[in-house]
């Protein structure tokens, strides 16, 4: 029984934290948020060199062959600094390929992905707020050696940065994953509440390619990939929630009103304590869920839903209160608190909001 991190994992955490402080501090995050791609080639290369782009990819494809709990450490630290780098999407694309792609494609693509020569993303559902196979409406018509795609992928995460896309599609035989290069499509950038996340809408109409680029995907695989998405999102939420709590807690110690630091008033300190209770709690659930991905797959659906179900609402409230406890300064664009509030808005519906996950917990728990 050991529910803690290893020495190596702690070193990895320190490494990512240092990367965020030195190479991607808040000034850089803001700069990237204003850019068309949300991407910085040098940072991406650095991440690749540090091995982060192939963390969960088996060594035979050039990765580090580590586990989701290690990936969680990285995503948590990136989330602390609101990194706009498409690390989670890239990891999800790796997971999707490992789950569904043929061996020859894995050998062909994964080494490029690990090396950072490609920036990849995964887009599953086409209807907002609906986690269900029926919410995949884009289609792939396979005709012998050729496949023709149609429909729209309206909510593609990190679409502005991606060079390659993996789209969930409907085929005549069921569900599938279609892999598409950026040259074949046009990305329409979508303005978002959270400027650090670059979402795009992509029309697939008229895209044709060899049918070997479409892989069958079972509903169970779709569920697993959705859970991986919820897992990655929750890891980022843990880091971001920690950071806004730290920011707000520090401010409460310094801000003097009526002759005292505002953190001395119970209206403020008790809310901070409640934020701490929530962050600690969905952090514990997140770590447990991350462990189940590789070590207890049959417990993964419930574990992920407990974590994401808790984090979705709690982080949203922490974002609001983090800004609110600051008073007017928190409302300004210049101050960073608002960026965390915006991240909490982004994270809430990703791969299922709390209603979805709580319903799932109820069903899995025998109701």
């Amino acid at each position, binding site marked *: *029984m*050991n*529910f*803690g*991190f*290893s020495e190596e*994992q702690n070193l990895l955490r320190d490494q990512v934290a240092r990367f965020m402080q030195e190479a991607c501090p808040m000034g850089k995050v803001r700069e990237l948020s204003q850019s068309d791609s949300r991407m910085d080639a040098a940072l991406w290369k650095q991440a690749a060199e540090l091995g982060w782009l192939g963390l969960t990819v088996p060594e035979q494809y050039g990765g580090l062959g580590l586990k989701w*709990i290690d990936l969680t450490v990285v995503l948590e630290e990136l989330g602390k600094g609101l990194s706009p780098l498409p690390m989670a999407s890239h990891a999800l694309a790796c997971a999707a390929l490992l789950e569904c792609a043929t061996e020859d494609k894995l050998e062909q693509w994964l080494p490029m992905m690990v090396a950072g020569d490609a920036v990849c993303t995964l887009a599953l559902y086409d209807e907002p707020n609906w986690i269900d196979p029926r919410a995949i409406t884009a289609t792939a018509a396979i005709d012998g050696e050729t496949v023709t795609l149609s429909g729209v992928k309206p909510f593609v995460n990190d679409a502005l940065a991606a060079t390659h896309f993996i789209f969930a599609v409907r085929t005549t035989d069921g569900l599938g994953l279609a892999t598409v290069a950026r040259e074949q499509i046009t990305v329409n950038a979508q303005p978002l509440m959270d400027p650090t996340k670059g979402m795009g809408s992509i029309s697939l109409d008229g895209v044709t390619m060899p049918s070997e680029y479409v892989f069958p995907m079972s509903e169970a695989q779709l569920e697993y990939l959705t859970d991986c998405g919820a897992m990655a999102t929750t890891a980022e939420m843990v880091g971001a929630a920690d950071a806004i*709590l730290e920011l707000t*807690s520090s401010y*409460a*110690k310094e801000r003097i009103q009526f002759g*005292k*630091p505002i*953190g*001395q008033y*119970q209206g*403020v*300190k*008790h809310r*901070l*304590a*409640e934020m*701490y*209770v929530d962050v*600690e*709690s*969905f952090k*514990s*659930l997140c*770590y*447990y869920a991350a*462990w189940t991905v590789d*070590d*207890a797959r049959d417990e993964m659906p419930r574990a992920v839903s*407990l974590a994401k*179900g*808790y984090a979705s609402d709690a982080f949203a409230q922490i974002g609001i209160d983090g800004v609110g406890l600051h008073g007017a300064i928190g409302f300004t664009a210049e101050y960073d608190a608002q960026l965390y509030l915006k991240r909490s808005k982004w994270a809430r519906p990703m791969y299922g909001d709390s*209603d979805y996950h*709580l*319903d799932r*917990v*109820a*069903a899995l*728990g*025998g*109701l």
Partner: protein
Amino acid sequence: MDFDYTPEEQAFREEVRSFLKDNLPPKGERPKDFLKTWLEQVREKGWVGFSWPKEFGGSDGGLIEQTILREEMALAKAPPLGTSFMGLAWVGPGIMQYGTEAQKQKFIPDILDSKVTWCTGYSEPNHGSDLAAIQCKAVKDGDHYVVNGQKIWTTGAPWSQWIILLVRTDFEVESKHDGITCLLVPMDSEGLEVRPIENMAGDKHFAEIFFTDVRVPIDNRLGDEGEGWNVTVSALANERSSIGEVTQMFEKLDNLKELVRSTRKQGKPASEDPDVRRTIARFEMKIAAMKYNGLRYLTKQIKGEPLTSETSVNKLHRASLEIEMDDFAVALNGEAGLQLSGGEAAIDGGTWSKSALNWPNVVIGGGTPNIQKNIIAERILGQPKD
């Protein structure tokens, strides 16, 4: 990170399970004097005061073994491991740390043998959460202290034989934490009067205690004069893994789900109501969070990292769950939910309605939620004190 147990730990779990299988009849099939037999048996196994040093009659049980023992006991719905609850929780540990040789010999065995029940005289009429501000007074007179004053909300006072009592021996101190002394006092002392207080559930678990010239031998002082605050703090810091509690709460959740499955709301099965389903899922979410918080803190302890005040996190979850789960069960059943034991439509024999009136035992007894929030804000987040 792994959730596996070593072969030794696994073997210990098997030992506990097989003991329970052989010696614990199902609830309802236990003979009237079963508790007595049980207490002797678990004492024999060394499971009463399991974590205590062997020299005092404990087993030196490690943190993981303690967790396993508590978890298995809770799963089996076993009677408690010893009935001297406060004796086991903090009076015993306090005596082992601060007591004289004579005190250790006099008090420790009786606690382990469940022969003596202790109560805790901390709160006073004007000082509950503000524990250090006590006024109950003790003055030295020869080889005795003479105690005058009042305690209140003393749980178990009506049936306890001894009380661990905080008194003020010095009023001329700069810090209110100084000048406090800890005394061990027999409840049948001359001048000590217990007046039970009825609580809102109709029980008389706690009491007021009046002290009028109660003479306590100096030999019954625990720790040095004026050191009472340290004795208390170190005793209360004897925090245990909350895993047994979590197992009980999962069990309560199962009962609640069972209730939902058998209840109709507005003419339809309650289990189809989205609000009902999500409320239950939220309970599960919080209990699971308690479980994994507990394991994370346990891991910290095992690695020798100091726990600051993290256990307040689970206390706050527990407090809200204690209130909300029973209240939800009562509300779900409408008029029938209101009925107490004996009512024709009482739900589950009135256990939910009774329990819904008993939450202050846990929620206020262990330090109010507001105090827990102060602890987290001040000791963990470093906010200034009130």
